[in-house]
């Protein structure tokens, strides 16, 4: 109780001066409920959430300096199978965005915590690596809390009206927020211990350099990044075997990556075609370390099309090749079965189950009643019996209130991986949103 009182006091201390100085105030308030409808587990209450995001912005009088401040405040009356401590509000979670912006002729400088998005892909964008992901939400298209803004310095240079050269420096990356507690790998008898760091302090300094151009015929971006990956690797135990008495704690570690990538978009017919390509170079280029992520080449090809009867659709084809996949080395003390088990668990966690994967995500939406009612359907097809369906319905009650509902349904058996990040449990949600 004392902890929550301190958190509330901190939030008030932040918000009060901002409220006084702000030129603009906004508020997003959400109440939602998730119910699990997995056939094998029966019905269960997964989560309910009451979420508030106050937002302030203003300008420093007499200067060009502008600022923005927002916070995430939420309570979770139903926390799901993980229990009450599943995901409590941590102090580091409260601050959403807090940054200063200064335009200086052909330059813009931003300092503080803010989100930065790269690439043109809307889903599974391989270039979108600056901000950590929040794996806690149950919907893959969580609209409020899916990305964690990063503390950064962003310098943008505009050599002409169409081009931007951008340099982003992040002193400490934020790690992905995971949804699982410690996990026993039953095939090994070892336990994965997740870290709960708010920032990756033991691997500082990340840099991104991007050139982008929005031209008459084509838009494109070129990106290089050297960064601490927000998704952890796993330190392999001294010996990977199922021998009783040899139980280890498997720690996680955050490693540096290089990313080389680009994206382009142009109008094609009545739609827009875009492609994001990224080569991510990890420390495990030869694939010998079963605990580390493989280097990969990923391409996301996307087409935004206008179908008949006013249906807006988007098709994304994602293909990824994982270099030297399955080349993990047997070390003294390992047995092959245990090594393969551990490697498979890690590969599943990193979404690198095979050397090559491909899947299609299709999005359809149609608006009715003069854009008051919106119906959407997301479909994920994995070139296998697995199929992901996510219908959505939202209705604008008035200018401030809206109601929504939807479901995430997976047809076919979910992957059997102990560290799988999304349990793929079928669920539905009901949501009420207020915006001011």
């Amino acid at each position: 109780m004392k902890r929550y009182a301190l958190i509330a006091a901190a939030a008030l201390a932040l918000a009060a001066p901002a409220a006084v100085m702000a030129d603009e105030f906004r508020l997003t308030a959400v109440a939602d409920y998730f119910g699990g409808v997995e056939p094998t587990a029966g019905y269960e209450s997964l989560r309910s959430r009451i979420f508030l995001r106050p937002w302030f912005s203003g300008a420093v009088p007499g200067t060009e300096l502008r600022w923005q401040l927002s916070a995430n405040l939420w309570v979770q009356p139903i926390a799901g199978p993980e229990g009450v401590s599943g995901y409590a509000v941590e102090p580091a979670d409260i601050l959403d965005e807090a940054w200063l912006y200064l335009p200086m002729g052909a330059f813009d400088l931003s300092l503080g915590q803010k989100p930065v998005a790269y690439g043109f892909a809307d889903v599974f964008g391989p270039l979108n690596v600056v901000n950590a992901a929040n794996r806690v939400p149950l919907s893959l298209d969580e609209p409020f809390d899916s990305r964690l803004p990063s503390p950064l310095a962003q310098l943008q240079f505009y050599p002409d009206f169409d081009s931007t050269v951008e340099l982003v420096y992040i002193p400490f990356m934020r790690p992905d927020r995971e949804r699982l507690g410690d996990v026993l790998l039953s095939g090994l008898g070892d336990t994965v211990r997740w870290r709960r760091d708010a920032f990756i302090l033991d691997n500082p300094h990340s840099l991104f350099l991007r050139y982008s151009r929005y031209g008459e015929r084509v838009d494109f971006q070129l990106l290089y990044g050297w960064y601490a990956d927000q998704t952890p690797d796993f330190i392999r135990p001294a010996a990977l075997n199922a021998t009783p008495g040899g139980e280890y704690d498997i720690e996680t570690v955050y490693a540096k990556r290089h990313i080389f990538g680009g994206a382009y978009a142009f109008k094609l017919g009545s739609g827009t075609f875009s492609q994001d390509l990224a080569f991510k170079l990890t420390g495990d280029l030869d694939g010998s370390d079963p605990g580390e992520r493989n280097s990969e080449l990923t391409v996301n090809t996307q087409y935004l099309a206008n179908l008949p009867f006013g249906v807006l659709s988007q098709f994304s084809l994602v293909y990824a090749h994982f270099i030297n996949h399955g080349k993990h080395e047997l070390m003294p003390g390992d047995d092959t079965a245990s090594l393969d088990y551990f490697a498979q668990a890690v590969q599943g966690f990193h979404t690198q189950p095979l050397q090559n994967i491909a899947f299609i995500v299709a999005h359809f939406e149609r608006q009715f009643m003069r854009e008051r009612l919106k119906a959407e359907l997301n479909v994920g097809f994995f070139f296998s019996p697995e199929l992901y369906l996510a219908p959505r319905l939202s209705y604008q009650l008035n200018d401030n209130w809206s109601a929504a509902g939807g479901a995430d349904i997976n047809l076919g058996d979910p992957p059997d991986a102990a560290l799988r990040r999304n349990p793929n449990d079928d669920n539905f949600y009901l949501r009420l949103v207020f915006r001011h």
Partner: protein
Amino acid sequence: MRKLSALALILFAAAALYADGVTVDQILDNFDKTLGIPSIQGSFKVQLISSSGEVREIQARAYQKYVGGSQINRLFIFDFPPSVRGTSLLVHSFFDGRPNTMWIYLPAVRRVRRIALESSGGGYFMGSDFTYADLINNDNAKMSFERLPDERHNGVDSYAIKAEGQSAEVKQERGYAYVVSLYRKDNFFMHVRKYYDFNGELVKIYEVQDYLSLPPYIYPTKISMTNVQTGHRSVLLAEGANVDPIPDDYFTTRYMQNN
């Protein structure tokens, strides 16, 4: 003899019809001149009025600037309702056959995207009865024009011109079989436009109910669009129009993301 008389009558009527010597090209050119304001900015509201009388409103800031002789740049930044606040739309329109270029900035995802909104959602602007084509100048090179008998609308004598796409593809792109536009005889300003669907039925009527005179330019400040088939109506109100020069950097993705 009777046939010759009938023919003479038709020829005489045709000659009398266009005895004023004003051609379609002259009407269109003079109309274009009324709209050729080098720069204009202001705010606008679009009221969406249902057949039952319920009103919803969209508010935005708008900026428009002519660039050279063949390009207009437009920027819309939406301020209301809260669900679209901060969204902006940047349009580069061309009059020399090049396709329009459009980008949208979505603050929720912090990304500028190239789009082809003209046909999205049937091409209707934010759920209103205006389409994007209604709000963005179109290249007349793809259209055929025919002068019709003059009309008098709300006491205003007007030239009438029928316009239709030169191909089925163009008609499909515009969403209409043809339109009939009325141009005021006193200043060549287009104040009424009637839209006809592919069955030849009247779909909607565009009507300028008020305008700002900035000689030699005319800027419509109140436009209604009535869908006669559904009973919907939308009213666009422009406020605070200002013709001060607008910097070119307003029409950039940088400005979209930071304002």
